[in-house]
């Protein structure tokens, strides 16, 4: 799974730590999600999407 979180973060000038604070996760978790090494729960994915003013579909790209 690929993500566009980094791109959206840059758009709002947010660091990984800022985003982590907003969604109540650890910085490493955001890092692993961005690298595709961790698949977040639906709840966390929703929080990230909300924090970045995007939808889950826009942030997470699934390879069919």
């Amino acid at each position: 799974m690929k993500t566009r979180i980094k791109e959206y973060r840059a758009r709002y000038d947010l660091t990984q730590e800022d985003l982590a604070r907003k969604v109540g996760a650890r910085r490493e978790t955001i890092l692993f999600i961005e690298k595709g090494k961790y698949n977040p729960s639906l709840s966390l994915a929703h929080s990230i999407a909300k924090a970045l003013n995007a939808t889950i579909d826009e942030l997470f790209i699934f390879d069919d």
Partner: protein
Amino acid sequence: MKEKMTIVVGAGIAVLVIFTFAFYFIAKETIELFDIVSILIIVILVTTSIYFIWDRLKNLKAGLPAQDERLKLAGYKAGYYGFIAAIWSAIGSNLGYNILFDQELRGGLVVAAVVLVSGIVFMISFIYFSRKGN
């Protein structure tokens, strides 16, 4: 508040364990194999506690949660591996001792081996999963 309380209680327990064992070994005249295993167990428990406390404090200071869903998942996975290791070490320690020394291992030592092996496996797998991701 709950997270801070957990850290304080964890640190307190770690200190108490160290003091208890220090007094125990000062009072003891001879050190046996069982004592060496006990020391190893204590070292593992205290090292793990210190690592967890340091890691949580670091995050709390940065205004981040001490634990999140990924870390909880890492804990569950590590617990599973620790459980499997406990089962196999219960069988393996006695069997290995029997093959190597042609003797039965004392019950207390089997328990010590189970705690030691499962503790090490839990600690290594938790650190591995929390540093690697999925």
